[in-house]
């Protein structure tokens, strides 16, 4: 038998000598000291701009006499949103866009990750190819698809013509423009979900799966009862991140349709940019940005609640 030394949960360090206040600063207060620089940077880079944005959303801000002039307007900017037909369409389109793209990208990303993780040959090749879209800047994606969708010279309509099918004005009808944007976004961002879910999949402990296999569980049963529950936190985080990004879509829509035809593809971020910079209505643009941030926050809370409920903590 070997002797063991009892270990207390909190090992006591020798107390620093000196006055009580100094002792506290050097001992118990050290964690605050250590955190202070990070908190200061966080406050400077995050809190200050956020507070300024909120302040701006309750103000009328404009240029006068070579300077930016602020004057408080209370809730006027927020009440104005309700009467702004473009803003309402933009919020509605954004919510539809987020719901469809995140759902499709998550399902496709999951399916691709499961397929690649089980692929023994050419796994590296698949990973590289599937990763490519997320490496291309959104502006490049927009330009590429703009050319492909072009009615007169685009690849897609050339293929349709070759197959004796009617070419379509993909970006110029209210029926097709929004679905065409969804296709581009799903093509672009599925690889992001794929990468995160694949990383999660490969870090799962294999022994549980093997035990289930020995117990006679089928492939589908193992997927449904073992892999997916273990993968749930990863999927939740990936979908949550993607939701945040999807709310902020700008480049692709700006290049492909600029919100048209009519306002059929108008989403909120390009509209905020237009209101802020082109129209010079900074206070109103800030109010739109605050509402957008609130919507994203609601989505994040919903994700957390759903995840907690599914894991039995809710």
């Amino acid at each position, binding site marked *: 038998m070997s002797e063991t030394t009892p270990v207390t949960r909190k090992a006591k360090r020798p107390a620093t000598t000196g006055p009580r206040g100094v002792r506290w600063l050097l001992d118990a207060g050290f964690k605050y000291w250590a955190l202070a620089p990070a908190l200061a940077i966080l406050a400077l880079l995050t809190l200050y701009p956020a507070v300024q944005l909120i302040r701006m959303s309750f103000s009328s801000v404009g240029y006068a006499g*070579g300077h*930016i002039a602020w004057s408080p307007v209370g809730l006027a900017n927020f009440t104005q949103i309700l009467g702004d037909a473009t803003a309402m369409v933009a919020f509605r389109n954004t919510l539809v866009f987020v719901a469809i793209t995140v759902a499709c990208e998550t399902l496709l990303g999951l399916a691709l990750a499961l397929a690649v993780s089980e692929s023994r040959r050419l796994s590296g090749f698949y990973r590289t190819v599937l990763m490519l879209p997320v490496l291309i800047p959104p502006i490049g994606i927009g330009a590429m698809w703009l050319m492909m969708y072009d009615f007169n010279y685009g690849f897609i309509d050339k293929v349709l013509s070759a197959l004796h099918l009617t070419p379509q*004005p993909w*970006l*110029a*009808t209210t029926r097709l*423009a929004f679905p065409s944007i969804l296709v581009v976004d799903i093509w672009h961002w599925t690889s992001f979900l794929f990468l995160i879910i694949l990383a999660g999949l490969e870090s799962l402990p294999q022994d549980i799966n093997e035990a289930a296999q020995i117990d006679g569980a089928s492939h589908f049963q193992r997927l449904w009862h073992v892999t997916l529950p273990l993968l749930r936190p990863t999927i939740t985080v990936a979908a949550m991140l993607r939701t945040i990004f999807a709310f902020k879509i700008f480049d692709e829509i700006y290049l492909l349709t600029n919100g*048209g035809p009519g*306002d059929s593809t108008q989403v909120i971020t390009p509209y905020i940019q237009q209101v802020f910079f*082109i129209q010079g209505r900074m206070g109103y643009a800030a109010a739109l940005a605050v509402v957008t941030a609130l919507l994203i926050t609601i989505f994040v809370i919903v994700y957390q609640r759903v995840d907690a409920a599914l894991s039995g903590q809710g």
Partner: protein
Amino acid sequence: MNQNHRTQAGPRFRRWGIALLLTAAVCGVASAQSQPPITILINTSPWLPSFKSLVSQYEKETGNKVNLNVVPFSAMIQKSLNAVSSKTSEYDILNLNEQWYSQFYSGGLVTPIKDIDPSYTLPKQVIEYAYADRWDPKVGASTKNGEVYGFPINGNIQLLFYRKDLFAKHNLQPPKTWADVEKDAKILNDPPNVYGFVTRTSPPNYNFQAWLHSYGGTIISLDQSTGTWSVNIDNAAAHQALDEWLKLTWSYSPPNYANMGQSDEISLMASGHLAMFIVASAAESNFTNPNTSSVVGKIGAAVTPGPTADARAPTSGIWVMGIPHNLPKAKQLAAAKFLEWAMTKPAELAYAKAGGVPVRQDVYEELAKDPKYGWWMQAVADSTPYIKAQVRIKETPQILSVIDRVLGQAVIKKMTADQALKQAATEIHQIMVKGGYKMAPLSSQ
């Protein structure tokens, strides 16, 4: 005797005259010389290479250094606003679009030229494009009585570009009226090989204004005697204009007419798939380069049509260059010296020959005779008496975004023309009331 006197005095006066001219020229160059380096914020565009050439010539002539900060069009306004909002602007000259400049003039974000160089007056040959270079703070708009705040640098106005070869083949003359346009478009329309006519629908406001102004309409107008503004976009002229514009949009364009941007129109024309369209004059450079155009030498240009040949209304879409308010005096003066030099005839001639769109009437008239440039410069020279301005008040971008939205809805038939114009009038009236303008009631009220 008199004759003798003249013959003796003539050479002497000529010598004095030449000496004076040389002195003036040397002083002119000297005043532009030894200036600190300046930086110009400018966007990528078809006329950027010609502007670079202008800058090179200035550097060669004066020895002064000019840096160009070139950004995409979409980033221009953000960068410009950031520059004028900081303690000291990082740029000494800003290139301002006709649809934005009012924000900069009205907010005091660029400096009036008289505050920088009080002795300078704009040469009479410089076209002021219905006073886009001026701002009158009393009425909050660009008017004849305003001070010069910016130098016009790109004299873009709308022109009708058409396929000379197709018109000749069908024995047609360039259209002078909208009825001519419709008649010719019908004859030349042969989709998908050639489309008779396209309008710009993404965004539509600038294109539509050629129709609106030609019918005698305006979006808003100011009665200078009473200082009262009126919103006119729902009147009979505007209705006629929109009906005509929509008819042409729907009848002779490709099926993607509802999302037709300027680059789409230019591509159609340059690839030989379009018979005619209305676009800013700077587009001409797209049709003369064999690397980008399959119709080199086959394109003609004319004054934009109207309801009658006398009622034509090319709308200006110019760029002006302004000097930020937040610069040291020496930098402001250096910037002004460059712009003053750029307004001279030799500089403008060189700029035009490098592919730029000049702003001097004498340059257009001189080059109109030149076979290389005359094909479009003659059309610009002929257009000058007809030029109409866009809306030029602080709220211009907001007003134009309303026009873009309702016209877009009318194009996709989500609104009728009547509904679109009524909606626009109501919203624009609200914007102007909120902006503090003295407003006449809406005609429907």
